[in-house]
């Protein structure tokens, strides 16, 4: 259970990377440099780095429309991510997927996903694959509170439970499904309660505290790896921006926003590390500077990449299998 100082530092680096990537994406979107939609992970940085700290390189994750944080935490390449956001030819999806479709099979990242609730089923597939192949790989399924009203959530929890699949369902409960607050979209307060219906342990932790998330994830991953089946971990957090960039989020009460900003995971965790001697302030500053440089480099990389040629507009967009079937 004990977490080392190195792991604690690593989580901070990833959290900082996400915060800076997302803040930069917000700025670039406002300047019109990023086409399409972006849904930012700002405020939720404590979750994915803490969960992914418990994973191996060959483990899997599934992500959501708000996926940048998950991909960075699992080791995604910032240059390729930024190039994809810019719609460039060398981006993760050759510039055709944008923010919501970034995947990296080599790193076990089974894709961000524009369909709410789609990741649950993919995670079950990955878990079943690991089970059939006899490996001890696990799959973490990240999702929001809104998706727990989708049929896919319930079907996937049921399937994962009856087949004891090595899947960790991590609900990032940011209290909103688009513009609808949780108390308007479901009659429960703790998504963790839904685990009991499928005989899955459900726990609820402070999603703005990476150490609380880490402890729960560590136990859940150990259970999954040992063949004991799935776990539902609910991380209570808050989306600091609107649902997407450009959403003014007028539906969020100002007092609520202010109260959650007080619990911002970034200064809270940095202060903890310094106060407890895990890092010095100089080390924290050095990480911040290093990450700022990484983001600058990613922007420079993306900016220098070519835009996909018009004649390739539908290349790689549809599956070859579909094309073959169509030709029959």
């Amino acid at each position, binding site marked *: 259970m*004990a977490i080392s100082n190195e792991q604690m530092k690593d989580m901070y680096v990833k959290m900082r990377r996400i915060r800076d990537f997302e803040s930069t994406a917000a700025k670039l979107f406002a300047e019109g440099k990023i086409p399409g939609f972006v849904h930012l992970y700002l405020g939720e940085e404590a979750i994915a780095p803490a969960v992914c700290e418990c994973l191996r390189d060959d483990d899997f994750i599934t992500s959501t429309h708000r996926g940048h944080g998950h991909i960075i935490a699992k080791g995604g390449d910032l240059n390729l991510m930024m190039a994809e956001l810019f719609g460039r030819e060398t981006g993760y999806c050759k510039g055709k997927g944008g923010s919501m479709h970034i995947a990296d099979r080599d790193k076990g990242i089974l894709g961000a996903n524009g369909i709410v609730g789609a990741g649950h089923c993919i995670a079950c597939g990955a878990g079943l694959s690991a089970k059939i192949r006899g490996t001890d790989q696990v799959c973490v399924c990240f999702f929001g509170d809104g998706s727990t009203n989708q049929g896919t959530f319930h079907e996937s929890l049921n399937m994962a439970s009856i087949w004891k699949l090595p899947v960790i369902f991590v609900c990032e409960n940011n209290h909103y499904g688009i513009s609808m607050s949780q108390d308007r979209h479901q009659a429960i307060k*703790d998504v963790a309660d839904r685990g009991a219906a499928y005989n899955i342990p*459900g726990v*609820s*932790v402070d999603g703005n505290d990476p150490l609380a998330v880490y*402890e*729960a994830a560590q136990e859940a991953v150990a259970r999954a790896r040992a063949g004991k089946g799935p*776990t539902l971990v609910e991380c209570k957090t808050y989306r600091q921006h609107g649902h997407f960039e450009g959403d003014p989020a007028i539906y969020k009460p100002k007092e609520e926003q202010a109260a959650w900003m007080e619990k911002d995971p970034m200064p809270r965790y940095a202060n903890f590390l310094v106060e407890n001697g895990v890092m010095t302030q100089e080390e924290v500053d050095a990480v911040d500077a290093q990450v700022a440089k990484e983001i600058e480099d990613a922007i420079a990389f993306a900016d220098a990449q070519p835009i996909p040629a018009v004649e390739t507009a539908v290349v790689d967009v549809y599956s070859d299998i579909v094309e073959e079937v169509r030709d029959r």
Partner: protein
Amino acid sequence: MASIGIIANPASGKDIRRLVSYATTIDNNEKVNICKRIVLAAQGLGVDEALFMPDTFMIGYAVKDSLEDDGVLEATLGLLDFELEATMEDTVLATGLMVERGVGCVVVLGGDGTSRAAAKAIGDTPMLSISTGTNNVYPAMMEGTVAGMAAAAAALIEEPRECCIHDKKITIFVNGQMRDIALIDAVVSDDFYAGAKAIWDPERIRRIVVTRCHPATIGFSAVAGAYEIVEDTDDFGLAITLGTEGRGVLAPIAAGVLTPVHVSQAKKIALGEEYSFVSDTRCMIALDGEREVRVQPGDEVRFVINRDGPWRVQPRKILSRAAELGMYDIE
């Protein structure tokens, strides 16, 4: 007018012990059901008003709506009005407000931590704690109907404290400053952050200070209880130090988890006596099962046990007294 207060913690029963042990899950809708039974039983015995703590799940509103819809609510059912923090402070504040309003008994639904929070403001008002948490020692597993009747009896009879136990309490000082309290146990662990709050790894536990302990309970106080039993009526507590040597005991440290541990030292602590140590490492002190107080190397930590905790209602005793007083008789 007889009134009772009801504090139901919506956050209890969902912590990490569901992963590291075989702990019970009680969802918030079941807490609503328990509260309905408390209100109905209390009004049945003559309570006029029940005051609820507001909470994020709006348990009080759910109880009111349901009982009104069913046409069975006769008592006045009110909710305290304050801005929620969704933390333990809500319980402290609500308890204090209920005491100010003169309720005859405060019913607390939650785990040891919820009762600990209520204890900070309960004063001399009788308190009845029902378990909806995990490894609970302080709150008892109890049917809501019985709890409602017991709370009503506490609110209605002349001397309810004759049917209560005046509990012991541990006060924790760090470098001479009072930091917090515990009702059952204060456990020193090797952790230095609160994390998921609960404690479950015996290898990280160094010292355990208890007001009472028995092997029939669950949690780290049971380690002390397996070594030597201390009753709630005893005018002393116990401090034990764990190590790799000393008497080995098997103790139920979590639901379904019996673990061997070695007690290297044990010391009875009389009421008012101090038990202290200087920490040579950073550590956390878990209070009634939750990591709360951070300690730095060189800090002087002091525990004092006194009989200045809540007046805990004994349900069987107070319901027997109610029978003697004819409270169940009808014309």
